[in-house]
């Protein structure tokens, strides 16, 4: 009996499930085959979890949006319309799969695959309970950012390959937004990494004796804003601005490809909410019972999704140049301020072993909340000034009692 033994230090070594399957299957099959089988099993779980999650998010978002808008939302199929995503999927699957004339067929086809793939791979490193992530990568945070940057290429390819000018507009906008917002997002995550002392998401959760949205409110703000830009959600959804450029880069997609793109979008919302929960809301750590970690994690993820939906339901969209201005003139300074403040605090507060105690975290929270309030107010004022100067608006409109039957404005010049 040559049972295979997984090297505990290999990438998947920390995954109990993988080891269990690997060693179990290894009893009967050669080791490499066991490795493949275990990997496939893990991938199956991952794909199902994320895509089902995306389906639930799509339903939940529509229900929530409906309630925000004082209507019901999907309610026809299943309890509370919960089977609606399945109906949608069935409809999309049975639709004709159109590749527009003049499109680059290969590039057009790989886009949905690429988007879903990057989403799935990114979801793999998020710990959804104590010590339960598919992979506890020691560079988890960076990994997610790196993988999500693949989406940029996918979107660009979609816009280019569709042979549609609206899609091209959307792609150009999306890339501009994605590239710009990556900078403040990475900088804000850097603050988290500094305090936690690790890039592994598992370690970051453990380090949150005080949830980081209190310790680093600025980073939280920047991260949520930046991520809603990267997810193409209002007020930063220029890339899919349906009132301007129809659907942006996925205008020409139909059938299963469209379904995949939608799955990637809703799944993206799910993964990003999970990431927010992990980075700022202390992930699976809850008030009682570690084994209930998945529950806390789900609740916190829901908070993230609710936040996104709430913002989406409330605000109009910004223009592209204004989004750029918000990124470079508002979020960027905020994230740098946060980074500097956190660096200094960590430098002065840590003890000899470079460890921060809970008391230290509370001190940091106190300082940082003040800093956040002040800097958001100051930079908000600055960006407002900028906006005022750029527009040639006369004083505010006024109410005039009419009754005079002459035109008060001189004609001519036209």
């Amino acid at each position, binding site marked *: 009996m040559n049972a295979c033994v997984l090297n505990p230090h290999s990438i998947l070594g920390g995954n109990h499930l993988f080891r269990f399957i690997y060693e179990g299957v290894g009893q009967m099959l050669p080791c490499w085959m066991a490795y493949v089988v275990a990997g496939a099993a893990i991938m199956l779980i991952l794909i199902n979890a994320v895509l089902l999650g995306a389906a639930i998010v799509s339903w939940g978002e529509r229900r929530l949006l409906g309630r925000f808008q004082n209507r019901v939302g999907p309610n026809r199929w299943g309890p509370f319309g919960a089977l609606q995503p399945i109906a949608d999927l069935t409809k999309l699957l049975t639709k004709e799969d159109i590749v527009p004339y003049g499109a680059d067929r290969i590039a057009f086809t790989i886009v949905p695959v690429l988007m879903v793939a990057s989403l799935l791979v990114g979801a793999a490193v998020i710990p959804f309970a104590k010590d339960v992530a598919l992979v506890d990568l020691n560079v988890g945070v960076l990994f997610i950012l790196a993988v999500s940057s693949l989406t940029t290429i996918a979107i660009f390819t979609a816009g280019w390959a569709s042979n549609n000018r609206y899609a091209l507009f959307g792609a150009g906008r999306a890339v501009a937004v994605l590239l710009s917002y990556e900078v403040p997002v990475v900088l804000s995550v850097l603050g988290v990494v500094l305090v936690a002392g690790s890039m592994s998401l598992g370690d970051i959760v453990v380090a949150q004796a005080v949830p980081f949205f209190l310790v680093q409110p600025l980073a939280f703000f920047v991260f949520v804003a930046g991520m809603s830009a990267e997810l193409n959600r209002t007020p930063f959804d220029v890339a899919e601005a349906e009132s301007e450029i129809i659907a942006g880069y996925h205008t020409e997609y139909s059938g299963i490809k469209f379904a995949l793109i939608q799955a990637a979008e809703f799944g993206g919302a799910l993964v990003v909410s999970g990431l927010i929960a992990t980075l700022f809301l202390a992930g699976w750590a809850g008030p009682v019972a570690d084994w209930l970690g998945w529950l806390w994690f789900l609740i916190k993820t829901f908070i993230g999704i609710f936040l996104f939906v709430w913002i989406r339901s409330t605000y109009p969209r910004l223009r592209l140049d204004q989004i750029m201005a918000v990124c470079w003139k508002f979020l960027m300074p905020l994230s740098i301020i946060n980074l500097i403040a956190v660096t200094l605090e960590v430098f002065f507060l840590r003890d000899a072993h470079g460890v921060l105690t809970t008391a230290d975290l509370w001190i940091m929270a106190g300082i940082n909340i003040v800093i956040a309030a002040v800097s958001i107010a100051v930079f908000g004022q600055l960006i407002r000034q900028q906006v005022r100067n750029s527009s040639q608006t006369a004083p505010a409109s006024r109410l*005039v009692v009419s009754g005079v039957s002459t035109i008060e404005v001189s004609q001519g010049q036209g």
Partner: protein
Amino acid sequence: MTIRTEPMTVNVGPQHPSTHGVFRVRITFDGEDIVEVEPVLGYLHRGTEKLAEERNYVQIVTLTDRLDYTSSMINNQAYCLAVEQLLGIEPPPRAKYLRTLTAELQRIASHLIAVGFFVQELGAFGTPLMYTFRSRERILDLFEMLCGARITVSYMRPGGVFADAPDDFWPALDQFLNDFEGELAELEDLLLNNEILMVRTRGVSPLPPDVAINCSVSGPVLRASGVNWDWRKMAPYDAYDQVDFDVPIGSSGDNYDRFWVRVQEVRQSLRIVRQCIEQIEPGPARLELPLVLRAAPGAEAYGRVEASKGELGFFLVSDGGISPYRCKIRSPSLINLTITEHLLIGWKLADMIVSLGSVDINMGEVDR
């Protein structure tokens, strides 16, 4: 050093989510900046003016419903005023008040649509639109109570309105007015000073008053440019000389002002409706007229109202028959579209949609 760019021509419409029906603009972009605009009209042309020559004076009322289908009451009113002028008759006072009241309710409904879609085009995900439609739905319910239809009302007839309001209409109207105060306040909280909306619309696509006058635009678009021009004040028709209201005037004529003027006009319309309820007195609501009307040969009449989108006029010529010899419709949406180039050129794609929305065109009226 300059970078040479290549212009790109894009067809916006007639199948576009935010061109208000089947409006088509051929736009040449430089990057996202607009350098050339060419509106293409006529996709919804139904020949209303010609159809009117084949129908008798009462039947034409049903055609006017379908011009600007978001404010059919006001279209009815304009047409009926023209016919009454043609025939030299005057409706009874109760009919006048009923007309004023319903026209103002319709103005509220129409402005609610304009505001809702305006914000929708700014990118709000349907929420303000849903709120405005919620209120508009109440108004349409009132219309259904009055005349059995919600959109294509055909409520007014030459010589009055088709029938007096039912008894349960007045309490329902009171109920609506009270509720709507709150809903309007909510809407103003959500929109009027929203920073994102301000940033997107303040100073964008301003329309100077001289250009506005030279393009002969009318309605909220004209008033937003600071021109004090409202037919309800200039040449009061129906019961407008009996009621007291203000005309909101914008200052710079930008997108925000056009939006702001509409919101304020909703408030003023509420005032008018309340005054109408106070002043209205019992009496007949319709003149006793024959089913088929005939005007004197050669008679001409021009009836005009301040519709929700601007000056709406019906020019009727009679040859003594049962239908007009000629019916010319001066539709505000079409004439307001003459400022398209002025509004759009030099602004961005995203502003273009918003500017078009702020003009509040209705293709049923543009193409007639």
